[in-house]
């Protein structure tokens, strides 16, 4: 990580196998990596959090209220964006939202203090891209299952002049096909950028402190103060990106269910 006082801000994104190097399915290597470990941690933490909401009491306690707040948040979002028919997609959108949110937040934890380098699952396009493709595939499946070929009318907005239909169709189709890319890329880039910024500032703090009292005062301390602010911002971004992913998924699902 540190070579001659240099700190590599990209090191945190490296995927390294922890064990199971020899594991493979049909010739594909599937070692259990640090990425997989943080996904497992996400599952465990989310599972523990959700179990606290499974008391299902008529008068809820604090924990149950918190869990119901999240389910109610997603259910409300689906209800307003899709309507009653969207209720069957609540489990998927909820899982998506909570997985991204918890993975984002767990990646921000200062676990390095305990010797474990935090890994942000959602800072990998291989993860966010797959999640985006799953959402996109769901939209396609639901759309074609409900409307058949009529689903293509999604690409021709109401009131389009007949002459314009081919052009509009192509533009709409292009924007539609771009959806999974933008969906996956947005989360991946937001997480990556935030973590690089934090790591670069952390490098300033460390290297500044090595250069004597002057650089400590001029570089390290301001950088550290900036880090505190950016860490808070990153917590906000973690929530917002999870929200955006879930919101866009529900909006795309709305297109598939209700067309225009």
């Amino acid at each position, binding site marked *: 990580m540190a070579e001659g006082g240099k700190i590599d801000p990209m090191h945190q994104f490296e995927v390294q196998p922890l064990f199971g190097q020899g594991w493979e399915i049909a010739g594909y290597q599937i070692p259990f990596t640090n990425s*997989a470990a943080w996904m497992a941690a996400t599952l465990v933490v989310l599972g523990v959090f959700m179990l606290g909401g499974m008391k299902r009491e008529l008068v809820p306690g604090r924990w149950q209220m918190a869990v119901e707040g999240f389910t109610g948040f997603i259910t409300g979002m689906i209800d307003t964006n899709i309507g009653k028919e969207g209720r069957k997609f609540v489990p998927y959108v909820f899982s998506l939202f909570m997985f991204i949110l918890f993975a984002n937040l767990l990646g921000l934890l200062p676990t390095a203090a305990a010797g474990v380098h935090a890994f942000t699952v959602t800072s990998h396009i291989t993860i966010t891209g797959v999640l985006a493709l799953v959402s996109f595939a769901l939209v396609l499946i639901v759309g074609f299952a409900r409307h058949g070929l009529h689903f293509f009318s999604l690409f021709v907005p109401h009131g389009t002049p007949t002459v314009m239909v081919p052009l509009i169709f192509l533009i709409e189709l292009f924007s539609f096909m771009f959806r999974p890319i933008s969906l996956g890329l947005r989360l991946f880039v937001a997480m990556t950028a935030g973590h690089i910024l934090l790591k670069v500032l952390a490098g300033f703090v460390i290297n500044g402190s090595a250069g004597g009292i002057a650089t400590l005062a001029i570089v390290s301390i301001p950088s550290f103060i900036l880090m505190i602010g950016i860490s808070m911002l990153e917590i906000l971004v973690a929530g917002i990106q999870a929200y955006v992913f879930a919101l866009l998924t529900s909006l795309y699902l709305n297109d598939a269910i209700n067309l225009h």
Partner: protein
Amino acid sequence: MPQLAQIAEIYASQLFWLTVFFGAILVFIGYGMVPKIQKTVDLRDDKIAADLKEAEAAQKAADALEEDYRAGLDAARADAAKANAEAKATAAKKTEASLKRAETTIDKKLAAAAAELAQQREAARAELEAMAAEATQAMVQKVAGLSIDQRTATAAVKKELTHG
């Protein structure tokens, strides 16, 4: 950027473990827990709505009861006022009757007293006449030396008295 540089090396592992863990979240949490939690929430919302409705009904019933009570109170008041007026009227009538009775008694007593007074006056007058006649007789005897009988004296006195 390791995310892109490592893709060829890690994509299978990433995809596999994402499937495992996200799949677990989707199955156990998304489909296992969320509907149950949401059902609890919906149940609670229904219960609250039902309770609110019940409370509203109870409120309505209470209002009706109060209205009844008010009406009963008003009727009772009216009855009481009526009874009061009746009692007053009866009492007035009774008072009037007893007043009349007392009046007649007093009138009677008054008449009796007046009659007695008149009689007494008459008696006194007669006595006065007798005394005056006697006195006249005596005076005539003394002054004129005439002896007049009692009848003449009395007639003279009567004549004088009536003249005043």
